[in-house]
């Protein structure tokens, strides 16, 4: 193979910043996803507090109209793309290889490239605050409001380029994980012996692979409309604003399943462990997940019932939207049946999962309500929809993610998150969440529209807005408690055993935290819940057989390509000459990547 590249000799450093920048280890990449996800989650949460403070009283004057519009748009963008998705990615980066008995993902350097491209897209999007042009037209940016005539500055260019970079990162990560799950399962782990979490991630990866290209076309069309005077969405020039809505929501609906399915996977791992019994209806939950994946592409126009769709499309999309409620219902019944007859231990992890069950069900019910177009014409774009969104996303995805943090923290970092603080955190979140978002159902029914920075006094909305604002402060406090628990754990001595919860899945067979090569010997799987199978048939697997384990060397080319893409993105915002520079950097880095020796 070719000699090492003249640029720099890569010596084996496994500490310090350089090891993080060049890591290809799925565990380190998972930690980086988790840290950036939590940081952006906190920033977006702060934006939410500002929104709630402005809406606490009628005709509030704390925040002016433009800033408010930027706040609610960036709150949504950062929560969805920079908060919940990366935290989901943290879990599947950490856990999928461990759960299927692989030493790493199929393409480790491609995995590093995905993270760095995600980070560059995230920084580019968030930097729009600094350059005074944060997008201010709502996270789904309906045309023609995004056209040059109705926006000032480059807010929508930040939106388009930022999401393009995030799209590249998510697509490449999904490709990587689909190949990993298909090809790198441990011997004996057939498709129906995989943990439910891995199934959910498999579905999430397919949803992203098949939906992101459609969003990419929409974003390119916005970018061309704004910078090259095309008329894709400009009705004056023959374009059609609904084309953007269709393209966005064909991506949009699979996207919301991408946000919830990892948490459904986490809950499907946490509930059986703390009910001390296997998941109920494994194949039912898996087929429910797969049917959600297929149906997810057939429901997108339920976001467009009020745009003047004819009777036939309204009925068709209403039927498909209601049909997608059935598998979700089946999952909820199966989780309940998992807890039935169990011996449920209540700690932070299990309480967050039970909280997920209750709150996600409320979100599901309110969702099915506006699957029916007559009701949707009354509820669309009111606070009823905001309530539905937050019950499924905050009550669903975020509760699932925090359940995962408390459950896998000993495995990730060898230390427990403090149980006492965890309980306080749960109750602050549970009560705060209901105080904030349940009154929004009432505000929606009272006709309060979405995305208004002020409202008049005599409409009957004052009490519920104050209640919601108080509730949101509780959520802020809850987050502080969580951060204190994380800090306390960071300071404590690593004392976590291999399998503190006596859980069934393979990641608990490794030490806490697992060695860099994950498994000393690749495990052989004989049944669905491998560790419980070994425990019940008292089989002890030999652990210390150490043969030469080949680990891919660290590489800085993934980071280099991501920087190239970031420079390309910056060029798209300034002058295309800089983009050319970015493309050159990308080509150089690909050339280095291909010639880099992997053994």
């Amino acid at each position, binding site marked *: 193979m070719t000699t090492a590249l003249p640029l720099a000799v890569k010596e084996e450093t496994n500490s310090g910043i350089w090891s993080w920048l060049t890591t290809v280890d799925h565990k380190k990449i998972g930690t980086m996803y988790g840290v950036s996800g939590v940081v952006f989650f906190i920033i977006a949460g702060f934006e939410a507090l500002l929104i709630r403070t402005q809406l606490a009283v009628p005709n509030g004057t704390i925040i002016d109209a433009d800033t408010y519009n930027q706040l609610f748009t960036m709150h949504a963008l950062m929560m969805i793309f920079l908060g919940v998705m990366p935290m989901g990615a943290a879990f599947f980066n950490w856990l999928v290889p461990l759960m299927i008995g692989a030493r790493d993902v*199929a*393409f480790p350097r491609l995995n590093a490239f995905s993270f760095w491209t995600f980070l560059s897209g995230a920084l580019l999007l968030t930097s729009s605050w600094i350059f005074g042009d944060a997008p201010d037209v709502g996270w789904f940016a309906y045309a023609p409001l995004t056209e040059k005539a109705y926006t000032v500055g480059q807010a929508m260019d930040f939106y388009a380029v930022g999401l393009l970079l995030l799209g590249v990162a998510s697509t490449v990560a999904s490709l990587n994980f689909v190949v990993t799950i298909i090809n790198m399962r441990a011997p004996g782990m057939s498709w129906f012996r995989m943990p439910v979490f891995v199934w959910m991630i498999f579905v999430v990866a397919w949803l992203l692979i*098949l939906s992101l*290209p459609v969003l*990419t076309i929409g974003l390119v069309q916005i970018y061309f409309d704004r910078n090259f005077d095309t008329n894709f969405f400009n009705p004056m020039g023959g374009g059609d604003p609904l084309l953007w809505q269709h393209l966005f929501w064909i991506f949009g609906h699979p996207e919301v399943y991408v946000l919830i399915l990892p948490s459904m996977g986490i809950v499907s791992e946490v509930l059986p462990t703390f009910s001390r019994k296997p998941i109920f209806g494994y194949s039912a939950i898996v087929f429910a997940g797969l049917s959600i994946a297929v149906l997810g592409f057939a429901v997108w126009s339920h976001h467009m019932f009020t745009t003047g769709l004819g009777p036939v499309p309204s009925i068709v999309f209403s039927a498909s939207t209601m049909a997608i409620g059935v598998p979700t219902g089946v999952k909820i019944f199966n989780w309940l049946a998992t807890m039935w007859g169990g011996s449920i231990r209540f700690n932070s992890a299990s309480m967050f999962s039970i909280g997920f069950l209750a709150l996600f069900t409320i979100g599901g019910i309110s969702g099915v309500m506006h699957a029916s177009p007559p009701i949707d014409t009354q509820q669309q774009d009111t606070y009823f929809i905001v309530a539905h969104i937050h019950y499924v996303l905050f009550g669903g995805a975020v509760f699932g993610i925090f359940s995962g943090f408390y459950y896998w923290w000993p495995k990730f970092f060898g230390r427990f998150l403090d149980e006492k603080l965890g309980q306080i955190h749960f109750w602050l979140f549970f009560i705060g969440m209901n105080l904030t978002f349940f009154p929004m159902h009432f505000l929606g029914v009272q006709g309060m529209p979405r995305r208004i920075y002020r409202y008049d006094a005599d409409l009957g909305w004052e009490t519920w807005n104050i209640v919601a604002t108080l509730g949101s402060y509780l959520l802020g406090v809850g987050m502080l408690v969580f951060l204190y628990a994380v800090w306390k754990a960071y300071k404590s001595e690593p004392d976590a055993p291999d399998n503190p919860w006596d859980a069934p899945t393979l990641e608990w067979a490794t030490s806490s935290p697992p060695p860099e090569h994950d498994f000393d010997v690749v495990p052989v799987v004989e049944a669905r819940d491998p560790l419980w199978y070994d425990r019940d048939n008292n089989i002890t697997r030999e652990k210390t057989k150490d043969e030469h384990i080949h680990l891919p060397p660290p590489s800085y080319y993934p980071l280099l390509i991501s920087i190239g893409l970031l420079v390309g993105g910056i060029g798209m915002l300034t002058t295309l000459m800089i983009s050319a520079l970015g493309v050159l950097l990308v080509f150089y880095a690909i050339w280095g990547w291909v010639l880099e020796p992997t053994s």
Partner: protein
Amino acid sequence: MSEQAHSVTGIDSRKLLMWIFLASDCLFFGALISTYMIFKGNINNPPYPTDRIVNGEFFHGLLNIPLTSASTFVLLMSSVAMVLAVYGAQNNNLKMMKGWLISTIGLGIFFLLFQVYEFRHFLHEGLGISTNQFGASFYLMTGFHGVHVGIGVIILISLLFGTFRRNSLGPDTGFHIETAGLYWHFVDIVWIVIFTLVYLMPY
């Protein structure tokens, strides 16, 4: 690329990655072609894709079917050349592989020249990207297809360059050329769909 891990399904991970990427690209071109087909109906200012009379005045259509079918034939032959190059690589007939690889690259570049000529001709006829919906969606679709062909040519050239330096078949060369071949054939079938829907379909 990464080392050859044992794969449960027997499919090489890199080939599986290429096929799933092509699945994703299917949706990419699906959305592009949808945009074109949506705007196909209402192009309301000249120049038009096909000959038509608009309130009494005759407008000459831009789309040149014989020329484009020639370029389609070129891309089709490049697919055949690609297949033979892969055949040569897999039967480690180095001379045959290099020969057909060079002709694939040549045909690919020839196709790109056809595209460049067509774009200049359209621009000359007054069809800018912002002139009308035909211009916008046509340039976006064929432009992205052209970019895919360009990237394909770059990949093939770098593979060719790889074989010259080592004047013998590396262990993976056959595999790399086969995977590049998959990408190349995909770009060809996308053009088959575009050729039929854009050029041959009546307006």
